[in-house]
């Protein structure tokens, strides 16, 4: 009973934001799920009504509401297009946390979010085990993408096309780095995010090379801790806060000017979701969160700012250009309004011929754990993206979020068309003097 009262009290706090929804339905026009299902409970307006009815006790089914709230990519397309400016994603994140607290976490999620993610060394051990075992059940799918698929009907993995886990994560390879500020007087903390740390190690190495080339001193802690969004979107505020606390400790004393990440989702989480959820924290913690959030920059935004000043971006290569297109990650384009920076980085590499795809800002359908929970729907949305990419005739698709890269690899590998998937920073990194020379020799 007391728990129910707490649920209702916390939901009531969302009341003012919920009241702003005039139920005009314009979110239907942009929601990637509604386009597939035409179901009101899959689109923002319907979900907001469910939260409203739960809060006003018209509907007494927290499980039912939770289940429907989880059927959402959290892409923010609705919030961006909302005529009334309803902060839809903020409401959904908070509602998931409030209902999650009331209902409690299922044991498997508790294990992952509270026992595994906050223990980086345990995660490293698991990764080594998994990496060693993955060859047994995988077979190669697409050599350009480096993707594999399961040899037999495997649970969870199903018929996905995926990239292998690295045996040693990026942070294991790098160790702790603590350089003094560079010639430009800046020192940047580098936060790769879990996917770069464990799967896209090349991207992490490229990012560090470019940052060093630009003359920034680099700080990398010896361990990788998750930014917390998987826990929070599963409604686990406690797990989320624990992870946030660990990252704050990692970077607190490093005296960095910026925190740079190559993951759009991590950037958006630290920049917008951390401060949003900080209101539940004690005053002192709130300030720590805000300080780090304000220092956080997406790597494409950070590098594009210095693009004009950067010395000697080599305009090498006179041969045939490679066609390239760009997919806007929702967390970059919709959450942080960054869309030109990655395109400018790609444009700085004259070996490529840029072609815009149709609807480059349409969600790829990944949505983090959404892909795990609703794979069929995720794939349906992703196939549209794959079609748009193929229609450009480009050989490479760049983006700026490793989560999108996982989805693009899966969806493109299925088409068998051998399209390369890269991060915009990797395209830009090819222009670094040492790389260009290597290529020419």
């Amino acid at each position, binding site marked *: 009973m007391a728990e129910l009262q707490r649920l209702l009290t916390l939901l009531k706090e969302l*009341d003012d934001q919920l009241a702003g929804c*005039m139920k005009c*339905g314009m979110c239907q*026009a942009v929601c990637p799920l509604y386009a597939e299902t035409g179901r009101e409970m899959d689109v923002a307006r319907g979900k907001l009504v469910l939260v409203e009815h739960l809060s006003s006790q018209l509907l007494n089914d927290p499980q039912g509401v939770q289940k429907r709230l989880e059927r959402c990519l959290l892409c923010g397309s609705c919030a961006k297009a909302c005529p009334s400016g309803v902060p839809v994603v903020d409401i959904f994140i908070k509602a998931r946390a409030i209902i999650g607290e009331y209902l409690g976490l299922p044991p498997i999620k508790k294990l992952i979010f509270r026992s595994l993610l906050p223990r980086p060394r345990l995660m490293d051990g698991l990764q080594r085990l998994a990496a060693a075992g993955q060859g047994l059940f995988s077979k190669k799918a697409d050599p350009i993408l480096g993707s594999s698929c399961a040899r037999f009907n495997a649970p969870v993995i199903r018929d996905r096309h995926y990239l292998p886990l690295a045996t040693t994560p990026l942070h294991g390879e790098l160790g702790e780095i603590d350089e003094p500020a560079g010639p430009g007087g800046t020192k940047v903390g580098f936060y790769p995010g879990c996917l770069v740390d464990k799967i896209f190690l090349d991207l992490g190495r490229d990012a560090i090379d470019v940052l060093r080339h630009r003359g920034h001193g680099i700080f990398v802690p010896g361990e990788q801790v998750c930014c917390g969004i998987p826990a929070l979107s599963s409604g686990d505020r406690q797990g989320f806060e624990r992870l946030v606390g660990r990252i704050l400790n990692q970077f607190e004393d490093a005296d960095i000017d910026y925190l740079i990440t190559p993951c759009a989702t991590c950037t958006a989480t630290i920049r917008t979701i951390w401060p949003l959820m900080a209101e539940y924290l004690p005053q002192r913690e709130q300030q720590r969160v805000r300080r780090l959030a304000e220092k956080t920059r997406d790597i494409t935004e950070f590098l594009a700012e210095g693009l004009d000043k950067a010395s000697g971006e080599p305009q090498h290569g006179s041969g045939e250009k490679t066609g390239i297109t760009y997919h806007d990650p929702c967390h970059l384009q919709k959450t942080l309004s960054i869309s030109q920076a990655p395109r400018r980085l790609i444009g700085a590499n004259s070996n490529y011929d840029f072609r815009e795809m149709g609807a480059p800002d349409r969600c790829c359908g990944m949505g983090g754990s959404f892909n795990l929970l609703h794979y069929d729907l995720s794939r349906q949305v992703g196939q549209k993206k794959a079609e748009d990419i193929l229609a450009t005739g480009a050989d490479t698709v760049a983006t700026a979020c490793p989560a999108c890269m996982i989805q693009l690899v899966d969806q493109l590998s299925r088409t068998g068309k051998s399209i390369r998937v890269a991060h915009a920073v990797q395209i830009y990194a090819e222009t670094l003097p040492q790389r260009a020379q290597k290529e020419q020799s």
Partner: protein
Amino acid sequence: MASKNVIRAFQDLLGRENVYTEAADRHAYSFDSAVLDPVVPELVLQPTDTESLAGAVRLCNENELPLTVRGAGTNLSGGTLPAREKGVVLLTNSLNRVLEINTEDLYARVEPGVITAQFARAVAEKGLFYPPDPGSQTVSTLGGNVAENAGGLRGLKYGVTKDYVLGLDFFDVDGELIKTGARTVKCATGLNLAQLMVGSEGTLGVFKEIVLKLVPPPAAQQAMLAVFDSVDRASETVSAIIANKILPCTLEFLDNFTIRAVESFRGAGLPTEAGALLLIEVDGHPAQVEEDARKVREICQEMGVTELKVSQSAQEKESVWQARRDALPALARLKPTTVLEDATVPRSKLPAMVRAINDIANRHNLTIGTFGHAGDGNLHPTILTDKRDSEEFERVERAIEEIFDTALELDGTLSGEHGIGMAKSKFMEKEATRGTILYSRRLKQALDPKGILNPGKIMGA
């Protein structure tokens, strides 16, 4: 709750996944865009082909389950709210095929769930034009447009949805197919049931297929933004333009409150002191567009326009229209609840109507921004409020009633394009006669003896 057997019958007919019985699903269909209390249906059905649509209607009738057809659910008068007891919501948005776009005979055949803007785009790709453009066109369905006789910005020159319905196939309460109208412009065959169905708000039948008229697109357009120091001046300008035998394709109006809201929202440099803005667009053959635009400019000058911006490029045209597109979002952000009305008057009565709305706002101490389609007298007084404030909301309801009364005194009508639904059915008698309502009810009684087709809408219970 509908019995297990009935639910099983629906599941057998439509497939389990297209029958929603869980509370959390049903609550997602308890509302539309009208500011009304939610009504939770007992069942939600999403047929995926027209055959099972007919079967679903028949099953509802056999079991006396009142059904409300829903497309996108963007109705502004509560027309898509289900019945209070045993209500079934019947979704048509999975029936979304464009069956034919005929460029020789200038018509298209569509299923009811096709989205308006997507259809208009498909038609434009074939080099033709479907003019009706209701404000919700990016999500609204054509079936909903026909059932509500939806309007839009182009009403003055191009008319509204009813002017484009050539033919209609629909199901009666027994799921029997009724075919009416034709694929031809002319058709004098039988009762004009197609037009009876237009604007019937789902009370007389369930659409299966719609034949829509298409027209050749205009070759050229020119848009203008005219600033006036008073509503009267702007309104007299509207009358003068039409008296000069010019029919702009759009002639939109923003009042001072709306101008200020849009300016603080976008900051595009609109004159916040202006009494009213007119957005005027003429279209047609390039020579005629030039001639009409020149005349409109002269008329605006004669009427004392204080500022006139003529768009020279597509980009400038966009910026002219941005102000109009921003009107609703800018107003909606000011207060939690947005009540969008659509009382309509003959266009010569526009100044009187705008004055009356301002008086009503002052008298009830309410915030009302007014914008709308000046060319056809269809205004959108937009009341900004918070429905959680019950004292204020009572004043809102009184204000709405007074807006209706004023529109009728000025020889206007309760609704230009949003329909009557539940929100306005009690006011019907003010505009029509008692006999009109009884006649409508007898008609419905004969066609729908069990009263299962969207009961409570238009003609009351």
